[in-house]
């Protein structure tokens, strides 16, 4: 099977925190080799301490990551990446401030070897409502938000309580299609966008991430054993349903034909692909509400607790 590189698109208008998010992900890559494609090497696109060398359009970063500028030709830039010594584990495309991230995602679907994992759109909490009715870019911002599989309401620390409530209501009214996470300085749980390990050690992996406790407390991570066969697309779709309360799910599950599939969910987008050989089944899910329990999740997704699961649970396997 041809290796498929996951791609996440980061969109949003100027000043919403896309670059800050990219740096945050690079700092928390946990050994994953990320490639970041940016529209231009903007003012401080990458934190200086992460940069090891620059060669034309390619900047080498610590930890085997790279950053390329793509200007007006994304496919050429992806080719440049292919020509590097080793393929990156995950590609992030930082769209320009006026680009429609969904359109970039669509173009990507034409190229073999890439799997669109999700379109994440950052929102500047302080300005989005005013900007959305601005003469020139109002409809562009509207389209960007509608393109989102996952919305990140950024700069929430700059709002007072009543402003925050009003903004949440506004988002609920107009952009209810996508799950929402709130953030300060673009610091979201990196596991929402990075490929975290799944299976038995998953909780450890996500807990190792280097972000502050007050941020991690905004999320709850739930690991599910998945020993039984399931209808994989139906499960994936269910996990991506907003009513499920997840912002992210990833894992390996067994289909009715005994094949192991990879499930990827970022916000409302899900994908199912053949899993690499030798993986163990299991799902890791991230929710923004601490009220989501394993029980509720299993019930919403119709995942039965198998006898083996129950036995292991009793043994405190997941602890």
């Amino acid at each position, binding site marked *: 099977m041809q290796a498929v590189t996951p791609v996440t698109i980061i969109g949003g*208008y*100027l*000043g919403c925190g896309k670059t800050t998010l990219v740096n945050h992900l690079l700092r928390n890559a946990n050994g994953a080799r990320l490639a970041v494609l940016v*529209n*231009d*090497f*903007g*003012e401080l696109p990458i934190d200086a301490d992460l940069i090891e060398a620059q060669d034309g359009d390619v900047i080498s970063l610590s930890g085997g990551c790279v950053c390329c*500028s*793509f*200007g*007006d*030709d*994304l*496919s*050429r830039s992806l*080719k440049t990446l292919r020509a590097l010594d080793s393929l990156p584990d995950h590609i992030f495309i930082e769209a*320009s*401030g*006026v680009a*429609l991230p969904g*359109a*970039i995602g*669509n*173009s990507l*679907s*034409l*190229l*073999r070897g890439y799997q669109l994992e999700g379109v994440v759109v950052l929102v500047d909490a302080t300005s989005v409502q005013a900007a959305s009715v601005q*003469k*020139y*870019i109002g*409809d*562009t911002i509207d389209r960007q938000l509608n393109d989102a599989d996952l919305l990140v309401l950024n700069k929430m620390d700059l709002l007072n309580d009543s402003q925050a409530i009003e903004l949440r209501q506004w988002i609920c009214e107009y952009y209810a299609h996508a799950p929402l996470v709130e953030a300060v300085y673009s610091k979201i749980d990196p596991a929402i966008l990075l490929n975290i390990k799944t299976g038995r050690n998953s909780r450890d992996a996500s807990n190792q991430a280097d972000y502050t406790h007050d941020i991690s407390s905004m999320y709850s991570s739930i690991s599910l054993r998945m020993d039984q066969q399931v209808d994989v697309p139906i499960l994936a779709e269910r996990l991506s349903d907003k009513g499920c309360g997840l912002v992210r799910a990833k894992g390996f599950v067994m289909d009715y034909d005994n094949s192991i599939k990879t499930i990827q969910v970022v916000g409302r987008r899900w994908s199912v692909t053949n899993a690499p050989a030798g993986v163990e089944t299991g799902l890791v899910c991230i929710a923004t509400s601490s009220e989501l329990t394993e029980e509720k999740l299993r019930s919403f997704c119709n995942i039965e607790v198998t006898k083996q699961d129950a036995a292991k649970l009793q043994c405190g396997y997941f602890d």
Partner: protein
Amino acid sequence: MRTPVPVEFQAQDTYHELEMTTIYSAKKIITMNPARPVVSHVAVRDGRILGAGTLSELVGFGEYSLDERFEDKILMPGLIEGHSHAVEGKWWRFVYCGFHDRMDPHGKIWSGLQTMDDVIARMQEKEKTLDDPTQALTGWAIDPIYYSDKKITRQMLDCISSTRPIGIIHASAHTMSVNTKALELSDFMRAGIEHVGVPLGDDGMPTGELKGPDVYFSVAQEAGFDGNMLEFDESGLIDFSRLCVRNGVTTATDLAAQLSDDIVDVGIRVTNETDFPVRIFSFRFHIGLTPQELIEQVKSLKLRSTDRFRLGKIKVIADGSIQGFTARLNWPGYYNGAPNGLWYIAPEQMLAIYEMALEAELQIHTHTNGDEATDLALDTLEAALKKHPSNNHRFTIQHGQLINAAQYRRMAKLDMCVNHFANHHFYWGDEHYRLTVGPERAERMNACRTALDNGIPLAIHSDAPITPLSPLFTAWCAVNRLTHSGRTQGEYEKITVEEALYAITIGAAYTLNIDDEVGSIEAGKQADFAVLHEDPTAVPAMQLKDIGVWGTIQGGRVFAASDI
């Protein structure tokens, strides 16, 4: 090109040739200098004009040789193409598949292809000359709106070859048609593709039509469009200059360049050859750079500018195109209800670029097609000028196809110029009328009359290679406003022949801020002339496009189209 002069003789020859005074006589010399609009002689020394007048007026400059070879020709100021792309020279290596007759750099007229069968036949002819059965076969300028079924499928192109990738870029450059092999090589030949730019056939496979550069870029590479589709190379630049000579052009633009160090080196070296016949203005476009980086790069480019390779100007692209439905339109938007187009720059970025450019005294030309994009450019310039007032910025709107009267009035207040896409009327005017913006707005597209009535400095352009480089044809378009179907579209916006000649000479020179150097035939200016077989002010306006071009004189150097 002429045989190069061996280096050891070059300096001496040049010295004699240029230090001497040559007085040219002509049947008529149209100066575009209203104080002496027509003269019989022009005296040239050292590549510049000593004077224009009668022979007896000019002999006062001293010893001269009289050159009477243009006795039966008409001289005009060298024509100026204010919006073209030098890459056309490169595209002529591909097979010309256009509907209209078109002249190549070597003067061969390629007949327009009236049916899809003609296109196939011409591609097959080229196919027979290729030995390697896997080599790409590439065509350009096809325009399926002229063909009855309007769709070109991969199966049609498979008839030419199934072993080699084939791609034909459409005249508008928005779409590419490819064969099955090209789809296979670029991994597009599979079921399950869901993309608005990739129509599928009944079999669920792509039809071979690829809409939008973001879709066709990766296939284009397989189909023979190597590297950067908008960037000239050495022999392409020389071929472009040949097209210029054949069309009377002595100054042309390369309006959307990335200008890497390598390309600047090529541009400077090639244009510096003693027999290179054109002055090229290469504009750095904004995409891929931050405002700060753009300004810094263009500032340093300006320092590398030479007489024939002019650098230091900026192209900003505000929106897309009207026929691609990517232009930003004000209400009521597209006639067919298509959603509004796309921004290629954020308002904040445009403001930053405008402010920094005004401060650094760099000139900007801004591509707008839709009227909303023009509004943005006007708002932005008005704001930027408050911060950095300038009384000679000459910021120019390029295309500005939907500028309305109120916008021209504002542009006049802001001292802006416009360069309209007059050729568009002829090629796509019927489409605009029928589909994109509807009758009323189609009639006022490229409103040259209203621009001039508001005192806006005006140029008109071809956007070559999108339409053919030929300022006299462009003038014909602006004067007659005929569409391909033969309708006059926008009677009110017609301009006179004299006004059109102004737009392709001194008007265009003004937009490039070189009206002190070129654009008219008068003492002190560059000796840049278009040499014509007929008098554009004497032939019927409908024949403007048919006037034969003998060649040019550029910087005092004579270039006959027949030798170029």
